């Protein structure tokens, strides 16, 4: 089903924020909407967005490629994005990340075998005083997890893994 048919109310609400002659401004919120269900942007979804805001598909793809929170490839249901930038690294973020990799048996950028979690290293998330920290990007948006330990993170991962199993 096309995006316009699936989310008529949401699309109308998004477009209402911008002057009608500048509906291109709605491209970013529409891309979030299009990414909501699958966790990544399909070709069809990008075509839908292009049509709604009246720009070319190429322009939409260029935008998707520019911003890190849009994904062109399927990842885990949850993307666990650990900040490893300087302030977090000064508070143990690299060691934290290494422990997560060891515990999950995957490398940075890889997804667990059950498809539940993709582990990613990201740049600053504006929570430098609460490192180690990460955000999870999933079907319900983006959530912060701060002052984390490896044990608490593994607990969270097992909850996320369970939620993926139950949906199946």
């Amino acid at each position, binding site marked *: 089903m096309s995006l316009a048919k699936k989310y008529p109310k949401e699309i109308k609400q998004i477009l209402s924020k911008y002057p009608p002659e500048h509906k291109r401004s709605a491209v*970013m919120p529409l891309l*979030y909407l299009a990414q909501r269900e699958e966790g990544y942007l399909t070709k069809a979804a990008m075509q839908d967005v292009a049509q709604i805001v009246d720009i070319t598909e190429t322009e939409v793809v260029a935008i998707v490629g520019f911003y890190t929170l*849009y994904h062109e490839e399927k990842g885990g249901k949850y993307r666990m994005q650990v900040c490893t930038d300087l302030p977090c690294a000064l508070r143990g973020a690299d060691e934290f990340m290494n422990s997560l990799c060891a515990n999950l048996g995957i490398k940075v950028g890889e997804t667990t075998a059950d498809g539940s979690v993709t582990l990613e290293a990201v*740049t600053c998330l504006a929570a*430098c005083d609460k490192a180690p920290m990460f955000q999870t990007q999933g079907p319900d948006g983006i959530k912060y997890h701060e002052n984390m330990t490896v044990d608490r993170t593994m607990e969270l991962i097992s909850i996320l893994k369970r939620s993926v199993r139950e949906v199946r």
Partner: protein
Amino acid sequence: MEHILLRHRDIADFNTLNVYKKNDGFAAYKNAVTKMTPTEVTQVVKDSGLRGRGGAGFPTGMKWSFIDNKNWPHYIVANADESEPGTFKDREIMEGNPFQFLEGLAIACYAVGANVAYIYLRGEFWELAAFLDQKIAEMEKEGYLGDKLFGGEYSLRMYTHLGAGAYICGEETAMLESLEGKRGQPRVRPPFPPSYGLYGKPTVINNVETFANVPPILARGANWYKSLGTADSAGVKVFSLSGRVRKPGNYELPFGTTFRELIYTYGGGVQDSRSVKAIMPAGASSSLILVNDEKVLDTPMDYASVRTIGADLGSASVIVIDDTVRMDWLVNKTVHFFNHESCGKCTPCREGTYWMSNITERIREGRGVPGDVDLLLNVAKQMQGKCLCALGEFSTMAVVTGIERFPEDFKKAVSKA
């Protein structure tokens, strides 16, 4: 001391409309719209000495007065893209004291004649954007936003807009491009946003913290505000303290507070009682301040004083580096960040950050050769003054000052190879 910006730390439930109203919330806004002209509002902000809190420190009232009154409509965009490594103050202000920020934004809109304001939040502030949407809806319900406000002719609407993970969108013209639904790449300036901004219309862009200062300035007057801080840096600042300190966090303090007070009195001192080796006062974009003598720590944190020790105060995101940290490791971290965040529009930044990233990577991994340090310094210096926006320039700051002020660290790193 009573907080002026982080008032939620003194008053419970300050992020609720009722509590905010009970504490004189929106009084300054109502007074401005019903009893003052836009020019008078701008004049008070000018007189207060308020300077932009996003990093550049440009006088706020002056920026407002640059708005082109021959071209309409006008817009305001609140910069809530907080992405500088080491900066986490705007998030606390918006979560804890959202109405003071929104009231300041509303007053600014009135002063420049804008009827629409956008709040551009970094995409990661997903939950915060939903929270602000609620607060905006409450303000509409109370008659602070909408048409014909306070029985007069002025109308104002506010909308949040989420970015999607791009540090460059904190640069004001890149932010405008992004808000227009394009890739966030900076524009060639001039023209500047007050004459050619969002949709080609006159636009003022200020940082969240800057707006949060406006209601107290209008309520208590320019002279009161100027009495805080120093002659060149009026008022208070939220300092984001991070790195190797015992108590990292935000500290609202008058400009002119010393690094020592921030790190030792408020921050609880350095972890494991080590000594401070270097300070980055403006996040990853900073020059590295060499702390080789106790006097450096006694430098007051204001725009002019920090310059005397070879750095800029910027957004006052103070990253503390202790004597266990190797500068070749640190520079690799900052360069990696800028390489990742370079938008690719101009060649010096796109290529320069790429090569600096390669060279610092091999130096850090012990694969560097003695010529690498000179090569790295050379690449950084070639970039300086040639980039389209400040990002490229910022990427070289830690590299150049790291090599020049901590040569031993780099010598050691390449001698192992």
